[in-house]
């Protein structure tokens, strides 16, 4: 069996202090259980994480680079969507 036969898995790690799982890379494995082992061996060797998710790459639906403009450009000039156009009272310190 060669790597070409093994499907690709994407690896997400939650760091000790981090709140969210963050994508760290990908690997090949025969199934999800092996992917978890490989992820442990490849991506947590330097004490990076306390939790691992693996997801088969084929199960991820991603936005296409071709759709970049219609997807994301329209929000680029709408600064008024940020809640920055009002004064913060002095009695509210931590914003």
């Amino acid at each position, binding site marked *: 069996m060669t*790597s070409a036969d093994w499907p690709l898995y994407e690896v997400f790690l939650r*760091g000790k202090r*981090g709140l969210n799982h963050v994508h760290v890379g990908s690997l090949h494995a025969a199934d999800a259980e*092996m992917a978890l082992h*490989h992820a442990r061996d*490849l991506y947590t060797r330097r*004490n990076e*994480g306390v939790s691992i998710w693996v997801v088969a790459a084929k199960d991820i639906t991603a936005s296409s680079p071709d759709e970049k403009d219609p997807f994301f450009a329209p929000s680029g000039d709408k600064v008024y969507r940020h809640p920055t156009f009002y004064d913060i009272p002095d009695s509210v310190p931590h914003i």
Partner: protein
Amino acid sequence: MGFDSAYEAISEDDPTADARWAFGTGFDDPLAGVDTSLPDGVDGADVAAYCVMLGDDALIASQRLQQWITRLPELEEETAIANIALDLLGQARLLLTRAGTADGTGRSEDDFAYRREPGEFRNVTLAETGVEDFGGLVLWLLAFSTWRLALTARLRTSRDPVVAAIAASAVKELTYHREYAAQWVVRLGDSTEYARARLVAALPLVEGGLPELFATTEVERRLADAGVAVDPSELHAEVDGVLGTVLGEIGMQRHDVAGGDEPLGRDGAHSAGFGALIAELQEVARQHPGATW
């Protein structure tokens, strides 16, 4: 960010560590705060001899695993085997260092690893057993890590505080090694005829090293009585049980292996290829006497 030492950058105390989540923080030293004095009524030479046995088991098994680097079937397995070899090397370093302090000679881990003759090594011969292929490797690793896990799990309550601390940290590593090996043995045993045949072919070689694992030397007997060591004969049932469970998953039969005149490696009697293994281990250190790394 300026640091006096690279280790400061990865310490838990660093207030800027939050932002660098991708690098691990909070490393701990398994021997931090551990009392290094010998327990009352225990001979330091015995403790040293025992630590050399357990340290050599780890050192030699690690060296065998390292020989597989670049020869494994997948890149991911390369890293897995390298990690396991590195775990065992870490255990060996702590145990050999303890040996040098316990017997009062002050010998360093390097003195033990690089400046002894093959006949002075005290590892069990299973640790030095060379296998032919990946199937043999995972079967060998299953047997070795099952036995070492059973042993170190009991050593966590050793009266020697250093041995107990080393064991407490090693148990977590060995639990993973055993799981890694077991899942590969089951995978291969359940897959193709060829993969299964490779396991079947390797089984007698691995089984041949088992009787020695449960033989008790004089040093072990004395230290077991003193609550420092584990009498290896106590491990037999657990190791047989685990191996039976894993091999039972794939319907593989164990053979009855009669012991000979054990112990072998604990007495310094090693197999034919052992000299070459030690020569490879010591080559760089012998070419550059006094070098530090």
